[in-house]
């Protein structure tokens, strides 16, 4: 077998405006992660703590787009990944964070940092190190092209395993009924 054929698939993952629940679900594949690492090499990911992305085969995006850093990271992933996968409710439709879209950003910030119960030293944080919040939380497909969507809050470890194995083996992607849910 040639070196090219045995080369591992490079996989990058990130959590934008999400809760890391989807990453927890990825770890829920349990001991199958040993099978996974024989097939793939993790690039930029909270699991490896690598901070910059190199050219990858698959990018997995958890979370929606809520601030300027999310936009930057998402565009970096699109630029460097051949296949980009939106995973979880937040990436797909904004999810729970998108419930703030019913209010203005000003109202949200004032509720959190000025008027909220138990707020000490009321002040809206403003430092150039803190990414600017967007007016609304957006699903990732509104910012870049997404190749696959894996719904769930979070999708189960089994769903992620079904998807990754079928994708890597070049099979058509299909799931048993119980593995697809929006919550």
């Amino acid at each position, binding site marked *: 077998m040639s070196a090219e054929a045995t080369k591992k698939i490079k996989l990058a993952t990130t959590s934008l405006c999400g809760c890391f629940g989807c990453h927890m679900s990825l770890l829920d594949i349990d001991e199958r992660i040993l099978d996974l690492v024989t097939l793939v090499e993790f690039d930029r990911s909270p699991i490896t703590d690598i901070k910059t992305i190199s050219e990858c085969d698959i990018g997995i995006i958890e979370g929606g787009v809520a601030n300027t850093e999310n936009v930057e990271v998402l565009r970096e992933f699109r630029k460097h990944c051949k296949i980009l996968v*939106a995973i979880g*409710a937040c990436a*797909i*439709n*904004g*999810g*729970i964070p*998108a*419930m703030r*879209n*019913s209010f203005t950003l000003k109202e949200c910030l004032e509720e959190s940092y000025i008027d909220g119960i138990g707020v000490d030293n009321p002040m809206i944080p403003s430092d150039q190190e803190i990414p600017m919040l967007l007016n*609304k939380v*957006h*699903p990732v*497909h*509104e910012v870049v092209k*997404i190749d*696959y*969507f*894996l*719904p769930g*809050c979070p999708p189960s470890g089994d769903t992620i395993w079904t998807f990754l194995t079928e994708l890597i083996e070049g099979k058509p992607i299909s799931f048993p*009924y*119980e593995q*697809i*849910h*929006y*919550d």
Partner: protein
Amino acid sequence: MPAHILEQNREQGTMNPVTMKDKKTFKLDGKAIEFEDGDTIMDAALRAGEYIPHLCHNPEFTPHGSCRVCIVNVDCKQVSACTQPAIENSEVDNSSDEIMANRRALLQMLFVEGNHICPGCEKSGACQLQAVAYYCNMLSSHFTHFFPQRSVDASHPDTAIDFNRCILCELCVRASRDVDHKNIFAIDGRGINSHLVINSSSGKLGDSAFTASDKAAHVCPVGAILPKHKGYEKPIGERLYDKQPVSIVGDVAAYEQDEDC
């Protein structure tokens, strides 16, 4: 033919030659479906135990044809099965890739037009919009979300209305008008500004004649009209559509009546 005779025929596995001759049929995905004069495609399919995805249809009420999810192809024309009278010897396509893709697009538009945050909804798992979307293999919302500004009406002691989730199916309108005879609900506005309104001096449900035992309280296919004090009663894994698709389980309204009344 009366239902009990149909049942007998099914049980015996034979058809009386005379009634056989009288029976009109059309083909649903190649399978012969019997129908009577005045039947819609949906009526005949439901009677034969064949599933056509739907949201605004409930056999107890006059067909409405507004959600369009039941579109089928009849002799190369797309129509809503719940309003289209069955035509003898016609070929009805209920499952081609084209029909399923169109249904997905319709569902995606329903999702982006409102605020359907499934992880934060008490109806999740027993929601017909979700279940039909699963059946139609909808994995993403595809379109740009509207994120409309809509309110929640929690003024009634037993029932809450979350307008974010209303898909304008008018089942509550029909139930309140035709069964409860209270006319509590209506759709106001046009086009994208269409919205559900409540018939009370304040526009609030709490000031209307609505009660939790009304038919209108038990027909909502989504989480727009919700009973209070019983949220998340059923654990994940045991909810209506957790294990089996809507094509087998059936409409959520059928179960709501059993549970609450």
